């Protein structure tokens, strides 16, 4: 169908390959692995996997072995004459403690731990607690393979790596409400997450823009609430995504954002009475001060109707069943205009008076308490968004709180919610859409975040390393201005930097900036060579000369760098 586009795609692929051949011409003196492994020792020999690589497992978990060869065959071997097989001159031996389990519930960092050993004779040994550890080991190894001339050569042998993340939750939020992504796109994104050792895909399923999930309790609703009749995820689609994610060591967490960000529910005439502020257009202030009629068109659930809670209960239970392996159901709770949509609404205002609610925050707490009880009765743990603009909001006991405010208010966040577990998505660093404009064509949370600034964030500046309060961190890909095409460029390579922070932590000073750039470029090349598009780290010239360009700065000097290039 799209010949021109295809030739463009091939063009992109060629660039990648040609580019890799130029880049890879310069051998690195050390294994470049993103995120950096916890412990690593390496030699200076190289060994070629000549004919094939035979994988065997002490656990005889054949399904998993099949999964492994499916994922890594094209990544490890770039010509048709080699691959995984039997009777090979090289062997890969797996020793997985829980050999039939991909990963257990919860976010214990040790679940992903692995030991990788490549011996001088080219034999490979991987030890892991769970199958997911083997995937992590395979991606570490795949990143350093040298494929020049179509061969598969392992450099830096003998190589020994002992690795595990510092935090068990390293996530990517993907907003699939504001843009629909085809199934293939979602799978490619999961591939990229695996390559980046990112283990949680947080799907923001619903928002003002659309409710694209065809839930069993509401047959026919998506006809009204999806962006178009074709842009719908069926239960079968979601199962396929969860299963694909699981095979790639990625957990999928659903988010049903309530009580705000729900306008699309009102597109179904059977539910429009659950909404207040439905389709109300407010004014939007432009940078020059003029106000255009173009504020976000609204829609907030009415918290005074019992029917609202019936609706929410059914959604939560549908999500619980569909996402049965998820550790929690995220219930959003973000950006609710309780004053305009609740307090100032005639009926709701009257109800509040009759029931003695003094303000919007109290009604919000009532809503959260009721929803929290429903979730608890269904055996569901909840999660919510927290921002810096209202510290009076109360959340149900035991819920996970995801903080998206400025990093400077993290201490306030900790102080306000000491009894919850936390996830950090500080927007000035971890929001991939910042700096790229909003839907009116004006600035959005500028500036665009760079790898260098993100790299400087360190969670232990805020959370004691001994505490398990912080589950981890998450990069957020909101989709207002996304398509299935440009989304890759926004996520990568920056997701790898976020992964580095939570997997391996701050780089020890003194370091060379050139080393960091070299690692990132190598990681980016790994993504591109295996089907995941990614943005530039720096210019072509500088990518080829990272030390010449970047080593002039010393590692203590980040403030002056910010000053120079702000």
């Amino acid at each position, binding site marked *: 169908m799209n010949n021109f586009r295809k030739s463009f795609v091939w063009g992109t692929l060629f660039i990648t390959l040609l580019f890799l051949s130029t880049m890879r011409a310069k051998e690195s003196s050390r294994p470049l692995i993103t995120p950096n492994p916890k412990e690593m020792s390496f030699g200076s020999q190289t060994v070629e996997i000549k004919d094939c690589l035979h994988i065997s497992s002490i656990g005889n978990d054949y399904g998993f072995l099949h999964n492994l060869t499916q994922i890594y065959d094209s990544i490890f071997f770039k010509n048709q004459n080699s691959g995984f097989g039997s009777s090979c001159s090289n062997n890969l031996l797996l020793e997985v403690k829980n050999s039939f389990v991909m990963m257990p519930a919860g976010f214990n960092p040790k679940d992903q731990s692995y030991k990788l050993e490549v011996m001088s004779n080219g034999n490979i040994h991987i030890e892991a607690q769970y199958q997911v550890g083997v995937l992590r080991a395979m991606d570490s190894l795949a990143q350093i393979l040298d494929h020049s001339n179509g061969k598969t050569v392992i450099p830096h042998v003998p190589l020994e790596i002992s690795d595990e993340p510092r935090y068990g939750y390293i996530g990517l939020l993907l907003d699939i409400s504001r*843009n629909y992504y085809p199934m293939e796109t979602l799978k490619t994104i999961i591939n990229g997450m695996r390559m980046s050792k990112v283990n949680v895909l947080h799907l923001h399923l619903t928002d003002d823009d659309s409710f694209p999930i065809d839930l069993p309790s509401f047959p026919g609703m998506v006809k009204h609430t999806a962006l178009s009749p074709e842009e719908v995820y069926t239960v079968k689609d979601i199962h396929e995504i969860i299963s694909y994610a699981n095979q790639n060591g990625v957990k999928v967490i659903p988010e049903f954002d309530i009580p705000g960000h729900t306008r699309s529910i009102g597109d179904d005439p059977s539910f429009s009475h659950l909404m207040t502020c439905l389709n109300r257009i407010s004014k939007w202030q432009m940078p020059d001060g003029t106000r255009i009629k173009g504020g976000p068109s609204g829609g907030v659930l009415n918290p005074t109707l019992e029917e609202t809670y019936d609706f929410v209960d059914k959604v939560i239970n549908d999500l619980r069943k569909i996402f049965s392996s998820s550790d929690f159901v995220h219930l959003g709770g973000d950006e609710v205009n309780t004053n305009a949509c609740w307090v100032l609404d005639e009926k709701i205002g009257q109800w509040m008076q009759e029931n003695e609610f003094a303000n919007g925050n109290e009604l919000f707490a009532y809503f959260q308490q009721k929803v929290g009880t429903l979730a608890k009765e269904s055996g569901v743990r909840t999660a919510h968004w927290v921002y810096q603009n209202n510290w009076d909001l109360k959340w149900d006991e035991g819920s996970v709180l995801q903080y998206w405010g400025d990093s400077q208010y993290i201490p306030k966040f900790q102080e306000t919610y000491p009894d919850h577990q936390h996830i950090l998505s500080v927007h000035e660093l971890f929001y991939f859409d910042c700096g790229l404009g909003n839907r009116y064509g004006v600035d959005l949370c500028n500036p665009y975040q760079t790898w260098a600034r993100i790299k400087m964030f360190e969670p232990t500046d805020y959370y004691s390393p001994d505490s398990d309060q912080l589950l981890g961190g998450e990069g957020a890909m909101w989709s207002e201005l996304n398509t299935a095409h440009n989304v890759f460029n926004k996520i990568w390579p920056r997701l790898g930097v976020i992964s580095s922070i939570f997997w391996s932590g701050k780089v020890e000073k003194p370091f060379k900036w050139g080393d960091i750039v070299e690692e990132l470029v190598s990681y980016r090349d790994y993504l591109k060579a295996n089907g995941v598009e990614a943005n530039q780290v720096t210019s072509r010239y500088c990518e080829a000369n990272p030390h010449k360009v970047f080593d002039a700065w010393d590692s203590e000097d980040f403030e002056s760098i910010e000053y120079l290039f702000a």
Partner: protein
Amino acid sequence: MKPCLVKILALLCLIFIAEISGEFKLQDPPPRTPYRSDNPKGPILAPVPRNMTFAKDDFEFQECNIKYHHDPILLEIIEIYNDVTYGKGHKERCSGTRRESLKVTINFAKLSSEYLPPKFNPEYEHYTLSADSHGNVNISAEYYPGVVRALDTLSQLIIQKTDENTEMFEMKYLPINITDYPEYGYRGVMIDTARDYFFPDTLKMAIDGMMLGRNNAFHWHFSEDDSIPMSSTSFPDLVNYTAFSKNEIYTVQDVKDIVRYAKIRGVKVIPEFEGPSHLHILGFYPEFEGLVGCFRNYTSTSGRHGGPPYAPVNPADERTYNFFTKYFSDLKDAFESDYWHLGGDEVSIGCVSVLKSTSKFLSEHNLQLNNLQDYYIGRERKVLHGFRPDVRAGYWWRGSNNKYGEGDILQYWGGGGSVKRAMDSHPTNYFIYSPSGTYYLDCGYVNQYFGGSWCGGIHSWRDIYNIDPRTLHNPDKKEFFMGGELPLWSEMNNEFNMPLKLFPRGGALSFRYWNPEVNLNEAQLMEMMVKYQNRLKMYDIPSSRVTNRYCEEHLHNCFGN
């Protein structure tokens, strides 16, 4: 079927298709649904025509049955616009008998003047289009580019009917009468193919997008400190030293192909060989040993960073002019150009002063270091005029103290100051407006070092559209204000993200310069931009979004009236 890629790579292509199974596949967008406007009040065209009257009749017809009466020379552009109108592959979808058809007659006066002249006179794109209630369409234009613009407008007036199973099309608001021409003749896009290389197919895709956005100039910046991918028959081994790799070059044949491709689409290609500065890479060419200032000294010119310095070739060395004479001569026919951009930006004269040959040359020619660049400009112009006396030279604006020739085209890129003042100090020069603070398409995507952006955040399509060109110059100097151009520098570009940075901003510039006086409300402006974006998408050109998906189809639910 398009070739897999450039011919040189055909073999590689086959090998890689066979071998790489994890390649990036561009995922198909959601099913192509025709644009669903919720604004039924009248046609919204991008750009809005200068004069248009319309009424209430409809005319329905089936595709593939348009009868064109035209000059044979127009066959190629008609086929291109059939693809734009009905989608690529529309011929294969055609079947069955036809009842109704659109009958299009094209009158086109001057075959010999088909190409845009260096001054980009607006009358070259002037056209009239009338359509009656019975499917008779008449197009008239004096010059070829006017026909291209008329077909572009026609393609936007034809709408696929959404309520039919068979493919039916219609024109609404008939009868329609349009007289249209741009207020400003120059609406350009610059692509830097030296800081990163783009394959000819990618450049052609960019040119397709320019055609749909009525950008009529592709300013091709092909030399930089980082690389020079443009090959030369006089210096056959040059690109071995100056290109990123041996596959990442442009041959004279590539240039011919691209120039022809652009010309058919109403786009003029303007070559730029930047000089004397930004030529660090030339220092690697053995023949130019000692010709490039600051070649080895990486830190002296540009602070602490070690990026490629702004290294100049020495204007005080005859070898420089010998090189330009031969190099330009190799390319002059391929570019068919009567307008060469010669750069002239950011010259570090300190880098020249230390070169061995300089002082001797200066005393021989009775020159001061300070006026060396003026000397250089004069010599360059002589080289160009040697090929063709009417050729125009273009330069990046360097401040009011510099001397240019009468009629030279100056590209004003300063953030501060004003183009008005520049026009006052250089009353015989023509100006193109490219302010870095709004028009630089790389701004906001961070620099090649640690981040940050010297030219502010991302300049959105709205920032670009908001600039009214009529306010930029004195009314009596309009003749000297040619138009605007969006430069896309390529430090942080690659094959994948380049079109996303170009589009939809290319059109935002063009639509304003075409018709600056039109006053659209918020929803109409959005609709114009979204329609343009959908046309790009239908033509397989990646584009960034204008607004969010929901608002694209519910403009009145998002933006009011």
